[in-house]
């Protein structure tokens, strides 16, 4: 799976792509372990281009979220829509995950928090 990285005012923007399923979940987890090792303390995960997620994908997100909490890294999920939104709502995780509507809102929140 492809991941696009951008840096905006010290905030790491991660744009996830296409499908997060059984075959990509582990890669994503390992990828984030590397990101967590770096010095970034504020991360925005953008789901705009994600078309599909399955339970393994949700598992990977849970892992990423838990790990970020442990390392006191601020992380926000944005632009969740379509089938991804449906899956997250179905698994009742919409209040559990740190979700905001748009990337701008996320950047603002993280900026203001500093």
């Amino acid at each position, binding site marked *: 799976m492809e991941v696009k990285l951008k840096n905006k005012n010290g905030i790491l923007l991660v744009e996830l792509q296409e499908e997060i399923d*059984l075959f990509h979940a582990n890669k994503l*987890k390992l990828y984030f372990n590397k990101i967590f090792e770096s010095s970034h303390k504020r991360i925005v995960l953008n789901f705009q281009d994600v078309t599909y997620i*399955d339970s*393994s994908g949700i*598992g990977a997100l*849970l892992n990423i979220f838990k790990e970020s909490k442990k390392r006191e890294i601020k992380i926000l999920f944005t632009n969740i829509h379509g089938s991804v939104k449906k899956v997250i709502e179905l698994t*009742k995780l919409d209040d559990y995950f740190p979700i905001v509507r748009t990337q701008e809102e996320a950047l603002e929140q993280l900026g203001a928090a500093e």
Partner: protein
Amino acid sequence: MQIVAFVSDFFSGPEWFRIIIALILLAMTQQISKKYEIPYINGLKRIPQLLVLRELIAAFYFTPTIYYISDAIILVIYLWWLNSYSEHRKTTTTYTIIVIGITAALVTAYEFFPEVTLTLFAVNVNLAVMITMFYFLMNEVSVYNTDQAGYIITNRTMIFIFMLVGRLSLFFDPTLQSVWAQYILLPFSMLAPIYYIFQYDIYFYSLQVDNEEFNSQYLNSLFDFMQTIGTAMTERIEVKAVLEYVMQAIVQYTDAEAGIVLLRDTDDETLRLTCREGYFPPPYELPQIVATRIQSVETYFENTPIKMGQTVIGEAAKNNEALLIRNTVEDGRMKANIRENTMYISSLIAIPLMVNNEVFGIVSVIHRTKRQLFTELDYERCKVFVEYASLTLDSLYNYSQLLEKQEIEREVNIAGEIQKKLLPGRMPKRIRDMVSAWSQPAKGVSGDYYDIITLNRAGKLAVVICDVAGKGVPASLIMVMIRTIIHLVAGSTQDASKVVSWINRGIAGRIDIERFATLSYITFDPNTNALEYSNAAHHPLVILRAEDGRIEKIDSEGLPIGLEREAKYERKTTKLNPGDAVMLYTDGIIEAMNPAGEQYEEERLQEVFISNARKTSDEILKAIRNDIDGFVGSAKQHDDQTLIIMKA
């Protein structure tokens, strides 16, 4: 005017007062018998009805006869109630004849010669004597000869006193005509049922509290146990060490005096002593000289294996049947263990260990004092433990073979094998008629688990559907954990949300968070039509109402299993009317894809469900399967599919 006079007479009369007491008793009995599962209460439920009936008759036509006849019937109900606890069929029949025969003869005589009240006096004497005989029968009840005797033992004296006081007081006025008899003496006869119904409430409430406390303690240890075994999987510890751990756990939780694990030696078909906890004499005859010293008994047992098929333990292993001998002296099968002090065993449980589809060995625990005997509950818990050990040993065994051969692709098959073993076993016909289930693992993925559990003899059942994220052996092991917890707690609580919280508490913090699970748990009681539902972020429950052919969706709050230890789960209740159908499914069903890459979708599933509403659960299931097959065509199945239909 006569009616008015009658009504005002009635409401100012003593019958009115007694009817109210009887009605209160009736309501209490109904409520308490619904609240708990009280054994043998059906007869007792008739008593308040009888009391109400007799007061109603007395309001129109008062004669002492109806009181004496109904009192005799009530005493007979008591006698047969006691008989269902501890069999005294002959004595009970004799007493029934005496009570009914003498009472009937005497009251008939009274009806013909109402001026001779001595007959009524004699009825009272007869009943008082028989009440005393009933008390003697109750006193024969003890924990050694009767299951669930606790209630009778605690309350027999008070029940007797109330019965006798009610009876003796009638000696003051056997014709029951005086105001004194009407207002005080007759209501006295209702003291005994009021007392025992109150006691039932107290007794079963405390039993339930104890049970729940024990359960939560027990569960915590079980969870640790599971975790230890889980680590054993990854650290490749020896089978013997796992067995020792299993042994200790079982001895501890059944409060047994000793326990052993015997492993099967397939070369000469024997069972060899592998682990031992406490002093455990062998189940076979020993040479006299050996049997006198505990130490020589132990050495002898270590060196003399049991042949498969010989002794109660060998037989249980050979036939692959779990065994409970509650009382060895009464049972008679263990002659070698009831005479000598050193050989004495009072109660025994033996449960075969199944690994790789054959008997791998047998676990057995014993009590050695007369005062302590195993209960059905001990037996059930033992079974859950051993079954869990079997399932994990099974995976341990397969896994270690796998690691040796480095055949990682086979892991998936093993997971599939484990999963097959989790599926519900044979079920009673009425449950098979009510619930139909179908589960199809996709290649490379296995994460669905479902189960149908009978909760009581009256046909109450629990249905669970669960989807564990991820695949392979680790996911299967989580299913094994979930299954074990459900089987342990489902029977001991009426509350569906409690079962789900217990599952969550057992899993959360002990697994990788990415192996979370979504799960729905329902219970259904066909006798009351009550359905309970609790959901851990699985698809909502779909109910198709027969009345208007509409779909009703029920959902309840709660996070997936395994995220937060303290997650709260909501409980929803509803009634199913005859013909209502319930559907549970996993993602794989609605995400089934056709060659064009389109998904089956929830809407289509519901349409097919509705259009087959009038069929049986099995036919509905088949119709949906056919429709999915038709839709998918040649496309490859990419996720597990599980579908359950239940019809009230």
